């Protein structure tokens, strides 16, 4: 997605661009697939950064302007509300921050002043300043809030919707996430992630860009610390001056034709997800929340589990529960943090064992749905479970990571002239972040320098 956004910007200004896509479908970590007549989104639970089109200068509006895609074409419908559900407390929030403020007041009256102070600090903070120093977010938040359980609840959605680090994140990232989720909020484009990808593809084509599917970059060719071209599918060579890589940092350096002077860590966080198609919609089964951030422990453990997956915490998404519902059936999605190596091991040992483990994920999914208050009077018409190895296979991200490496290249620069990083490893998060990343890297490193 960051690659498509970058491609649009560059071809808009008459640069000769080719996008090389390894897969047969665009989108990378946010994509879709079909089974029978049904279409499934992967990645996107919700689009963050929801804004009223009249509000100026917000990330989503900026994005639309830079790509010249009218805002209305996304046909966004906002969430009903979402829920952070811990063992003894629940916090509701929607796209109006006042609901969360009321919920904090109600559940943590002793912390309301601290929470308001944090809110002011966040609103005044410039999170996209590339010169911000790295400070861990929990250290900053503890200056405002003392109650551990409120801290855990606030961090829960922000961590699982975008942190490559375990249990904490850089404060700038925290502010990006806080603003995009709590201050702006969730929505869903009509038609799901496919609508976004189709709009980007159409725009790229209008601008005269070229896109090749099933074209894997197998080598980045350099000479004298400067980019000279890429090798595609182990055969064809394409010469070029600039490469914007959305493969990820470690993945990009793995195909570079020289010994890396810098090593990048592969992130620890991957996921399993169960998608259930049901005969009844969640509303008929007693749930009108859009997303439930479920945690069954006093503390929220956002870390690689020592088992195949962590069934004690999950993100439960009900795509029917946006204001506009274009599904004919009920759709339930449950995402758990998972351990890539253990899944890989299972797959190597035996396919049957792997299948059995997938079934265990499904059993826990049903249990989690029940714990979220879903009435069990439904029939499952179809189910699909994907694992960290599935993510690895389709996206090429080492370790099946969804939020990339714990090393980010904020400026997008590498030691090789002409080679730049965009997408999740440049450090902007989510769908909106990935598009912003592509746009700003194209502007900064290619368009400004060749004016």
């Amino acid at each position, binding site marked *: 997605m960051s690659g498509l956004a970058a491609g649009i910007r560059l071809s808009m*200004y*008459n640069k000769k661009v080719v996008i090389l896509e390894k897969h047969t479908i665009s989108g990378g970590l946010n994509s879709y697939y079909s089974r029978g007549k049904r279409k499934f989104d992967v990645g996107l639970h919700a689009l963050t950064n929801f804004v009223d*089109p009249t509000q*100026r*200068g917000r990330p989503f*509006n*900026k994005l*639309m*302007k*830079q790509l*010249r895609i*009218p*805002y209305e074409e996304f046909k966004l419908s906002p969430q009903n509300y979402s829920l952070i559900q811990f063992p003894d407390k629940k916090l509701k929030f929607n796209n109006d921050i006042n609901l969360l403020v009321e919920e904090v007041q109600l559940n943590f009256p002793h912390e309301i002043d601290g929470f308001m102070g944090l809110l002011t600090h966040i609103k005044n903070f410039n999170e996209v300043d590339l010169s911000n120093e790295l400070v861990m977010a929990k250290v900053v938040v503890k200056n405002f809030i003392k109650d551990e359980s409120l801290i855990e609840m606030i961090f829960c959605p922000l961590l699982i919707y975008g942190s490559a680090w375990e249990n904490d994140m850089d404060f700038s990232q925290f502010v990006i996430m806080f603003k995009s989720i709590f201050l702006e909020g969730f929505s869903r484009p009509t038609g799901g992630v496919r609508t976004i990808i189709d709009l980007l593809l159409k725009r790229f084509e209008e601008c005269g860009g070229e896109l090749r599917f099933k074209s894997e970059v197998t080598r980045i060719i350099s000479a004298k610390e400067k980019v000279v071209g890429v090798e595609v599918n182990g055969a064809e060579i394409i010469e070029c001056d600039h490469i914007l890589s959305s493969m990820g940092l470690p993945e990009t350096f793995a195909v570079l034709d020289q010994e890396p002077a810098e090593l990048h860590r592969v992130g620890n966080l991957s996921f399993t997800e169960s998608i259930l198609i049901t005969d009844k919609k969640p509303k008929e089964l007693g749930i009108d929340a859009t997303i439930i951030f479920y945690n069954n422990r006093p503390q929220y453990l956002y870390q690689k589990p020592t088992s195949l997956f962590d069934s004690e915490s999950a993100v439960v998404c009900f795509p029917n529960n946006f204001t506009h519902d274009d599904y004919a059936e009920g759709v339930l999605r449950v995402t758990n943090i998972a351990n890539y190596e253990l899944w890989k091991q299972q797959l190597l040992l035996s396919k049957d064992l792997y299948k059995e483990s997938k079934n265990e994920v499904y059993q826990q999914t049903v249990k989690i749905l029940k714990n979220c208050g879903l009435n069990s009077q439904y029939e499952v018409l179809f189910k699909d479970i994907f694992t960290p190895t599935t993510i690895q296979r389709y996206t090429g991200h080492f370790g099946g990571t969804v939020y990339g490496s714990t090393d980010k290249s904020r400026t997008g620069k590498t030691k090789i002239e002409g080679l730049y990083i965009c997408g999740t490893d440049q450090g902007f998060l989510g769908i909106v972040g990935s598009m912003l990343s592509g*746009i*700003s890297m194209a*502007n900064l490193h290619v*368009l*400004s320098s060749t*004016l």
Partner: protein
Amino acid sequence: MLTNEEVRTKVLDIIADIALDDDVTGIKDEVALREQLDLDSMDFLDIVMELKKRHKIEVPQEDYTRLASMQSCVEYLAPKFNAQA
């Protein structure tokens, strides 16, 4: 020779495409564009690039401030348009 009004129209066409969601019909010529429209530095870069793409007019970085208001745009760009004619 392009009149100032014609130059203004050409600039306005560019701004209208960049500031998709803004109404550009009521722009006041003497007031900074930034104060009237939702434009940031990335958008000013786009104005510069559109001038180059559509009209082959180059604006060096040190002259970006000359694009601040519609009036200063016309003053600065009219000679450049007419140098081409």
